[in-house]
């Protein structure tokens, strides 16, 4: 009975994923009919932010590390694209040695590498603490990065960097919103696939074990510090990818991407959807951004209603939207059985 229902469940999952792929591919045609450009841009933003939220969820939900500083990696990803673009147009090398570029195939790996390196440094230092101290020290590092870029007058300071043209990619016309959507969808799909494999790998299992009982995992011979640090670095790299895509999409990189409320917003997306579940951050990001867009169109005080909804989700539901849906599905299936 239980294997049967499990098979049924995995079949259901496969059908849902296949359906989602079809829908995502068809999105531009659907939005063309119903919502126009703004709907397509909303969905593109959902894809980008969900990469960042899923990355945060990897350390938060699977690793149990509550980081309030992930905006740092998101922002750095954006700034790598911005800085390389500025030096590409100026035709001057960055820091005297690194030539600028506008090639997406270079800027994206560069953004991932730089944010990974930053995560390695911040993680190596922060993971020496735990609990409240961990939350605060990650916030502290993110604030340092924020103030650093605010004070960099040479690169726009508070105003940020305008990337006049989206990076070039395989000769495609990246100014076309449709093309850009499919490129971002491609990166998103690769990222999600990689994350899916990672969570199901032995590494993912060890990480979840650490969250449940660190001491027991240590007794089994897994060094917690090292595993958590790897996870933190991978998570930072994911956020860097999201930031780089965002800078390309908005054609803008600013300290706003590094602000601590961005970290809180990412955390909100994760919680809304459901901590420690694969699809939770996707649902949460979609819910957050749709709410933000819809509420902002209705009222100037949309944050008030966002606050109320957030409060209701945190206090009222255990496990966010993902758990709500799972409970709903379970209810239907139980009805059938």
């Amino acid at each position, binding site marked *: 009975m239980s294997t049967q229902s499990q098979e049924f469940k995995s079949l259901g999952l496969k059908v849902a994923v296949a359906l989602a792929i079809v829908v995502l591919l068809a999105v531009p045609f659907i939005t063309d009919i119903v919502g126009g450009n703004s709907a397509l841009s909303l969905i593109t933003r959902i894809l980008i932010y969900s990469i960042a939220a899923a990355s945060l969820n990897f350390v*938060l939900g699977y690793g149990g590390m*509550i980081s*309030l500083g992930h905006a740092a990696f998101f922002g750095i990803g954006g700034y790598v694209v911005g800085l390389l673009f500025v030096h590409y147009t100026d035709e001057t090398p960055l820091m005297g040695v690194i030539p600028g570029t506008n090639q997406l195939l270079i800027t994206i790996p560069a953004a991932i590498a730089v944010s990974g390196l930053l995560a390695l440094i911040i993680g190596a*230092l922060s993971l*020496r*603490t*735990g*609990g*409240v*101290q961990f*939350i*605060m*020290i990650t*916030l*502290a*590092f993110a*604030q*340092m990065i924020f*103030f*650093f870029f*605010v*004070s*960099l*007058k*040479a690169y726009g*300071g508070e105003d940020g960097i305008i990337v006049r043209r989206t990076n070039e990619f395989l000769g495609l016309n990246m100014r076309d919103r449709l093309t850009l959507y499919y490129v971002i969808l491609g990166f998103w799909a690769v990222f999600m696939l990689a994350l899916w494999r990672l969570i199901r790998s032995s590494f993912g299992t060890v990480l979840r074990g650490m969250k449940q009982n660190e001491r027991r995992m240590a007794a089994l011979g897994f060094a917690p510090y090292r595993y958590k640090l790897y996870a933190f670095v991978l998570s930072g790299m994911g956020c860097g990818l999201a930031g780089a895509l965002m800078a390309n999409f908005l054609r803008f990189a600013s300290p706003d991407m590094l602000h*601590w409320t961005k970290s*809180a917003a990412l*955390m*909100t997306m994760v*919680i809304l959807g459901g*901590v420690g579940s694969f699809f939770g951050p996707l649902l949460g990001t979609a819910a957050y951004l749709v709410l933000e867009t819809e509420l902002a169109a209705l009222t100037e*005080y949309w*944050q*008030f209603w*966002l*606050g*109320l909804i*957030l*409060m209701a989700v*945190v*206090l009222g539901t255990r496990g966010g939207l993902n758990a709500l849906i799972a409970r709903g599905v379970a209810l239907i299936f139980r009805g059938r059985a």
Partner: protein
Amino acid sequence: MILILEQLLNGLQYGVMLFLMAAGLTLIFGIMGVINLAHGSLFMVGAYAGTLAAAETGSFWLGIPVALITAAVVGFAIEALVIRRLYARDHLDQVLATFALILLFNQAITWGIGRQPVFIAIPETLSAPVELLPGLFYPPYRLVIIAAGLLVAYGLYLLINRTRIGMLVRAGATNRDMVRALGVDIRLLYTIVFGLGALLAGFAGYMSGPISAVQVGMGEQILLATFVVVVVGGVGSIKGAFVAGILLGVVDTMLRAFLPGILRGMMPADQADALGIGIASMGIYLLMALVLLVRPKGLFAAGG
């Protein structure tokens, strides 16, 4: 020399303000185990309530009790409606729920009062600078803040170390579960601690009103600095909050005052100013990172 002394006093005044905020927050952290991001909102509520009352009555001093009472009442309400449900939850839920409170308070005030900053004048008796040392003129209002802060610190010291409630607070900061197991009404203790924290935050908010504008978002600015103070001082330790508050207040003020000037010797003026302010803003976070790397639990952590 005069300039350095003046900035030292400014730093002391900011440090005292940070201590008023951090004292409440560290107790809420240490005893109730709750991360309360909405502490800055209580600071803002106190500032608005007191300032509006002062504008209505024309008396600065009448604003103080109004600020205190309003902040405490709002604090009790928050505790009863939201915080009480968070005791058993993990830090993540606490961060999110209290972040939602920040959104609610900020928007409610924008809604009710507006985005424009509200200003309040320093009371006339305290507005003329006094000469502390030959050549050192200093606004007496800031001296009053310093004195009031030190007085509150002494009062808290007596409360924590000499009274029965203080004994329970100390016990709670060391081992919460043991206190509950011994039959103490921990819920009442929680409410008292939260109310006390709210009171202090409201007081700090109102007193800082004449120095910096009363506006939406004022709570978040001081909130982050307060968290740094709490963590550096050690969660649950009033003594730590005091030492770290003064230390960070002075360091932050000195960096802001003198760093741009020092950098100007090395680079163009506008760049030096931007970089100096940037590094000065980083200063307290850098200090926190350093302290935590050496002492992961802060300087005076309660409960070991």
